């Protein structure tokens, strides 16, 4: 639900309870990864590395500032929980990362592969360009032929290596009898090489070796940009997932041991401490506590849990330790079953075709027809195969989608970079284009518009004496309501009364005695009060009537501004929540949202999105809980905060990294402008084709004209994209 819960779940207190001899038999070193969100300078790197290296058991530690991460090689018995306090003492916040989830190195391989091909293509095109410039400058006869032969010797192996991604993609499209952007590219490359070789053997004047290489270079640059943007998003998303280290404390014969969640089997007993999240579905065997189910259902009121009650994975234990008997693990837990709902919703999502695909659909057949027509025309006119083939190759090269290949990646790279700095992670390639079309925004309440932390509303209703007693009781508990009450009272300058015998009754509240009479702070039923529909903690002093401290869910920073900005931009804003109607109504009124629904089941949320979509609206869904997951998948585009459950983050296109909601409105604006730039780029590319294609068809194009036109259009398109930054 909230970010504050995650560190305590990761900083496992149970790590210390691992019996030492259990790990001694595995003498290999262990690798640990820590996320360090606070580091930013050289001093931080030195301090962290020195601190870690001085810790006994650590063999080596290396900080990566770009990823804000530390990789540690250590002896097998060193746990992340031992190192986190070391860094805490140095003043750096640290969280453990699950190495199994971090697979960035694999993604890196693909990026490195592209970079190599790009480098080889760049090297070759520079060299061939040098030779070509000499030809254009007037080299003739034997010199020109020699230059052409050297160019051919460089170009052929380079194309064979560097253009492989295009060959593969074109082949896979052709195999299923479809055309994609890569088919004309490959055709142009092959035709250019064939005619150039032919020309060279006949001592001809024009060879397009440089054009083929520059084309490959620019197109690979586009691919690489595209890849980088997605790799950054993916590694950040992986890091979010890796922060939730899947561990549980297993009880066997009364001995606690820490195991990974994957090792649990049905019937095991596990211990869940206050603040911990349920790793599996199960049944409470002993202990009493309260459960926060807001991530699963959107309810803000905690649910009482005692022996015999079923719990679901994802719920957060609030007050007392619970012993749970495991009833379902892995794929069978309710968390995972929710994934089925997502799959169904996703299949219903209308297939979005990106602007680039649309352009390719028009472009690919057009180019083929044009070059085939010019081949046929010139062949019939001159009955000379060589001329006709040369002109057809020139047409293909000139129309080749160099600028088109850069048009989309350059813009999305610039826009994603800009949004990333604002704290938004664009996960999906077409998310920006879809975001630009949005006209309706549907918000979830708990954890999305609200921070999930309670805020006291009626402090003024209590006398100072009462507050002093309440503060004394509240300070003894870690329950979110108590914490909030203690903070509010502390800010009002109240000091705790001398209440004695204070003890917490898990699941109920805290109790003590003050001047001989019993005082209690806790659940309504426990102090004998009427249950209210607003979150409340009840104070019971002696024989007086119990009175309630009422709480409201604190708004997330920027929630008001974001909603207002969206309304100002002419978008329809709705609120759909699983929480009680009254709670939803209060929040809707506070934010100025007129269209709201309370007590909505996950299916209701999906239904609402579907109805809106059928009415022709493009819906943006913003949500964080498991109950929103299917709705997130069904919406045209979706955003979830970083504190959301893993399943919700996976289902959404954009992840909000910070606490603040204001970037949402800005993202819509940036998406709008990005789409505008993409269209502009398409127009620029077309304009250049309109000028250059007639020249090529008329047989007037030379390799020099092709090179100039190709470079200028690619550079204009990239510069136009950079205006977004």
């Amino acid at each position, binding site marked *: 639900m909230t970010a504050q819960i995650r560190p305590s779940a990761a900083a496992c207190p149970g790590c210390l309870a691992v019996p030492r001899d259990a790990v001694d038999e595995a003498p290999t070193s262990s690798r640990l990864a820590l996320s360090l969100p606070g580091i930013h*300078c*050289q001093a931080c*790197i*030195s301090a962290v590395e020195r601190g870690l290296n001085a810790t006994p058991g650590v063999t080596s530690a290396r*900080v*990566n*500032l*770009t*990823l804000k991460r530390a990789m540690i090689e250590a002896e097998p018995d060193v746990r992340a929980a031992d190192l986190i306090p070391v860094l805490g003492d140095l003043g750096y916040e640290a969280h453990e990362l699950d190495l199994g989830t971090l697979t960035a190195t694999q993604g*890196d391989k693909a990026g*490195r592969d592209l*970079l*190599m091909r790009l*480098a*080889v293509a760049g*090297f070759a095109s*520079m*060299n061939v360009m*040098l*030779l070509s410039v000499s030809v254009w400058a007037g080299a003739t006869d034997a*010199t020109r032929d*020699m230059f052409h032969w*050297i160019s051919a010797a*460089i170009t052929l192996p380079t194309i064979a290596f560097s253009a492989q991604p295009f060959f593969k993609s074109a082949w896979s499209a052709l195999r299923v009898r479809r055309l994609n952007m890569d088919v004309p590219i490959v055709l142009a490359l092959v035709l250019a090489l064939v005619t150039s070789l032919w020309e060279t053997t006949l001592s001809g004047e024009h060879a397009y070796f440089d054009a083929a290489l520059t084309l490959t270079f620019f197109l690979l640059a586009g691919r690489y940009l595209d890849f980088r943007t997605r790799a950054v998003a993916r590694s950040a998303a992986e890091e979010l997932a890796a922060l939730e280290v899947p561990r549980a404390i297993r009880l066997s014969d009364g001995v606690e041991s820490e195991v990974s969640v994957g090792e649990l089997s049905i019937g095991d007993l596990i211990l869940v401490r206050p603040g911990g999240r349920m790793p599996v579905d199960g049944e409470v065997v002993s202990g009493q506590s309260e459960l926060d189910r807001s991530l699963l259902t959107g309810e803000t009121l905690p649910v009482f849990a005692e022996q015999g009650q079923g719990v679901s994975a994802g719920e957060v234990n609030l007050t007392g330790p619970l012993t749970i008997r495991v009833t379902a693990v892995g794929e069978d837990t309710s968390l995972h079953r929710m994934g089925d709902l997502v799959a169904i919703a996703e299949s219903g999502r209308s297939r979005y075709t990106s602007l680039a695909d649309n352009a390719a659909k028009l472009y690919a057949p057009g180019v083929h027809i044009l070059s085939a027509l010019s081949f046929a025309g010139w062949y019939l006119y001159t009955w000379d195969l060589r001329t006709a083939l040369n002109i057809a190759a020139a047409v293909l090269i000139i129309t080749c989608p160099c600028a088109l290949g850069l048009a989309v990646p350059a813009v999305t790279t610039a826009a994603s970079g800009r949004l990333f700095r604002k704290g938004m992670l664009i996960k999906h390639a077409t998310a920006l284009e879809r975001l630009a079309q949005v006209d309706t925004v549907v918000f979830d309440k708990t954890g999305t518009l609200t921070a999930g932390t309670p805020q006291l509303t009626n402090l003024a209703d209590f006398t100072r004496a009462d507050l002093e007693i309440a503060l004394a009781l509240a300070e003894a508990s870690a329950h979110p309501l108590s914490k909030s009450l203690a903070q509010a009272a502390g800010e009002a300058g109240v000091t705790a009364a001398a209440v004695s015998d204070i003890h917490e009754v898990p699941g109920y509240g805290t109790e003590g005695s003050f001047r001989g009479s019993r005082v209690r702070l806790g659940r309504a039923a426990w102090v004998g009060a009427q249950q209210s529909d607003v979150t409340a903690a009840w104070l019971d002093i002696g024989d007086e009537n119990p009175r309630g401290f009422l709480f409201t869910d604190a708004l997330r920073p920027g929630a008001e501004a974001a909603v207002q900005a969206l309304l100002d931009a002419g978008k329809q804003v709705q609120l759909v929540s699983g929480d009680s109607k009254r709670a939803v109504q209060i929040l809707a009124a506070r934010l100025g949202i007129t269209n709201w629904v309370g007590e909505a089941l996950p299916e209701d949320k999906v239904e609402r999105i579907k109805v809106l979509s059928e009415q022709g609206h493009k819906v943006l869904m913003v949500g964080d809980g498991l109950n929103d997951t299917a709705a997130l998948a069904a919406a045209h585009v979706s955003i979830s905060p970083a504190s959301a459950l893993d399943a919700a983050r996976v289902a959404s296109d954009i992840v909000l990294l910070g606490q603040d909601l204001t970037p949402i409105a800005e993202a819509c604006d940036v998406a709008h402008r990005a789409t505008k730039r993409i269209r502009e780029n398409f127009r620029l590319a077309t304009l250049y084709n309109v000028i250059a294609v007639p020249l090529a068809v008329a047989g007037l194009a030379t390799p020099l004209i092709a090179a100039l036109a190709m470079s200028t259009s690619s550079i204009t398109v990239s510069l136009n994209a950079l205006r977004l930054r």
Partner: protein
Amino acid sequence: MQVLFYLIPISLILGGLGLLGFLYTVRSNQYDDPEGDSQRILSDEWDDHPKP
């Protein structure tokens, strides 16, 4: 024209050396942490002798 027989191979070899150098830096993970590397240069920790 004789000069071309020396100069063209030389230009190719020099360019090829640059390319090999770049491929080496890519293969040895030198682009993994550009931000950190630009900051580490400010550290005086290994100024007197290289890191063992």
